[in-house]
């Protein structure tokens, strides 16, 4: 028979006192740090974005992430169409944020825009849990209007789990961590390094981005790195399996209720420009998405297939450079001209 655990050399009462003192100290330090840290979203908050749209009175609103920001020239688009265009974008945003941008900012605008176009890639429209942690959660929360039960049920809780979501929403230091890192690094680049090297404003960020841009990478190493970063087994599931659990039906309902013409833009990908064949499952998925949208008075514009782009039209990853953006904007103007409803506002 083996002996059971003997008693501890440090008496429990003393240990608990030490533990208590530590926790008290922790509460003081963390409380102080929390008070010092501001909470700030990348994409602005609800009142400011609503005010911006109210002032701009756009006919056309473009919603998306950095792809829409970089791939579509809104001034050129406005000029070609002869309408007012506004963009609602935040880097890294996916369908949770797009849904809120449509429901809480674009659709309620007075007067409502005639058309809202949402840019997406791959399966983003039927994967509502994408980009809902870190800074993305901060950005999503900045656009929430009330409890947003549908968003919680379909996007946040399935992706994060209720306990983690609670922690992310209430532990402020954790909630802002992505943005804290982003701002810290921006300060270092543009307010520490740039003045030290005598660079113009923003020169630190520009130099850093230029030195480490995709254009300077060894192609073979970059391809191997990107292959490693994506799951080779990732394949498109059946569209019908994902749509009912997504925020897509709600987006269509919101647009119909105003009414606002809703268009989805499938944004270009570098792999297509390089001639890499699309996975058959993804082709099937896109076809079904297009049919599903058409049956609900919404439209899919597949910029991936419709705009002939060269690899040289791309800047970093799937983001277009000026030549690519010009091609996409010109094509989009032609396609949207036919879809833009008459102005009855």
């Amino acid at each position: 028979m083996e002996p059971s655990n003997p008693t501890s050399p440090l008496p429990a009462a003393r240990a608990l006192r030490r533990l208590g003192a530590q926790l008290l100290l922790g509460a003081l330090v963390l409380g102080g740090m929390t008070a010092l840290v501001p909470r700030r979203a990348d994409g602005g908050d609800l009142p400011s974005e609503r005010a911006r749209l109210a002032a701009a009175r756009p006919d056309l609103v473009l919603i998306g992430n950095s792809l829409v920001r970089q791939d579509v020239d809104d001034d050129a688009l406005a000029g070609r169409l002869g309408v007012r265009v506004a963009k609602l974008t935040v880097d890294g945003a996916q369908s949770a944020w797009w849904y809120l941008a449509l429901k809480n900012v674009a659709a309620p605008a007075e007067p409502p825009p005639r058309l809202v176009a949402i840019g997406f890639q791959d399966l983003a429209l039927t994967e509502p849990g994408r980009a809902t942690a870190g800074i993305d959660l901060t950005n999503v929360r900045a656009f929430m209007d009330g409890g947003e039960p549908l968003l919680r049920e379909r996007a946040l809780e399935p992706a994060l789990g209720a306990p983690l979501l609670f922690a992310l929403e209430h532990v402020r230091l954790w909630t802002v961590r992505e943005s804290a890192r982003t701002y810290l690094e921006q300060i270092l680049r543009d307010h520490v390094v740039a003045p030290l090297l005598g660079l113009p404003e923003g020169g630190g960020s520009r130099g850093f981005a230029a030195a480490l841009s995709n254009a300077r990478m060894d192609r073979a190493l970059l391809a191997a790195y990107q292959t490693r970063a994506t799951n080779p087994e990732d394949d498109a599931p059946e569209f019908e399996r994902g749509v009912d659990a997504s925020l897509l039906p709600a987006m269509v309902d919101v647009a119909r209720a105003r009414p606002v013409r809703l268009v989805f833009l499938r944004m270009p990908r570098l792999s297509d420009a390089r001639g890499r064949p699309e996975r058959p499952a993804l082709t099937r998925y896109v076809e079904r998405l297009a049919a599903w949208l058409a049956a609900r008075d919404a439209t899919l514009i597949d910029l991936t297939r419709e705009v002939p782009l060269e690899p040289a039209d791309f800047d970093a990853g799937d983001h277009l450079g000026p030549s690519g953006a010009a091609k996409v904007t010109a094509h989009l103007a032609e396609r949207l001209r036919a879809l833009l409803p008459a102005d009855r506002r």
Partner: protein
Amino acid sequence: MIFTTAEFAAFFAVVATLFWALRRRTWQNAWLLAASYVFYGWVHPWFCVLLAGSTLLDWSATLAMTRWPGRKNVFLACSLTGQLGLLAFFKYSGFLVDNARALGEKIGLHLPEPALRVVLPVGISFYTFQTMSYTIDVWRGRVAARRNLLDFAAFVSFFPQLVSGPIERAGALLPQMERPRAWDWERFLSAWPLLVTGYYKKLVFADSIAGVVDRVFMVREPSLALLAAGGLAFALQIYADFSGYTDMARGFAKLLGFELMENFRTPYLALTLADFWRRWHISLSTWIRDYLYIPLGGSRAKTALGSLAIMLATMGLSGLWHGAAWNFVVWGLAHGLLLWVTRRLGFDAGWRPRTAWRALLGWAATFACAAGLFTVFRAPDLGWLAHALATSIGRERPADAAAAAVIVALLAAYGLPWAVHFGCEKLAPRAPWLLAAWRWVLFGLLLLLAHEGGRAFIYFQF
């Protein structure tokens, strides 16, 4: 399973709670063994077969040595062949095949592409070295062979240190498996500092730098400044990553009532290369010293050339242990050569400079060598490095200078809280509350700046 994921946090909470709820040591070890196999086989369950095979091989070989002492050399040879064979097949077969094919191409012989690529089981180098040290110690008569398979298997597979060390010696960890353990408040409370610093080093420092380092080492023709900044960043990243892992491993082990050895002692403060190797990855350096360097002749070599050959063989193999690629071998050989040269010049591990200037010079030279050689270690391959070095000089671009300065600024910003913590540790005897408070600041910064968990530790691939 990775220490930095939510699934590990849940796993550890269940394992530790049940572990302490089980009062009998045998049950605790059985539970620990089961947990370790779940941990190891989480992604690829078949890895567990290898781990079990490795355990059974050395357990039976050492028992056979005791049963038939006259044939102990045969059993040692069987064990080493088996362990090194596993390592050779899983870690080096691809390397050997690729080199054979490349050599074949040079002489006009077209060898076919191998039908399958072998997946490298995580941590195989760590646990094979751990069991090999046990077998060799039994053969040497320094450790008694263990009959209790449960205790031995729990020792080999102990999950906090299974996949990235420290490579524990049987003499240190096995007795801890065999004696009854007591709940110790002191030990429990001492886990917290290790966990906080470990997670800070990994999730804030190493993971923040990792993306930048990855990109620098993909640039086709980096300038010298960019390459140097990338090399410096990787030298600090790998230290933060690996020593962070060790801190976490030691912290989790403490929560289960075990003590693991220290694996790093501020290696970048070393004054000589020999001193660096006494402070860097101590469990591997001492393993190499005890089971390779000394048996090969070590410092007893009669000629300078002999001692150089032994040093190069030892460090070359140490490099190869890290990975099946030529840059690891070159990294090891370069360390071997520099160790040999500096020792012959009198700069061994015990070198104590007479003036502060000499100390500063020694430190700077050692740091430059260690960090510079990590550039060889990190390079995608020797061809890339040769091309980068050849094209880097005289090709300074303003953008590269800005990027290099940003990288240094990032290192300073993320490293500062860690450096302050180090300073507080030095002041701790006089101001213990300062250290306690700064740990909470570090914890707060961890919440504020941590990357999402899930980026694997660098040493997993070794």
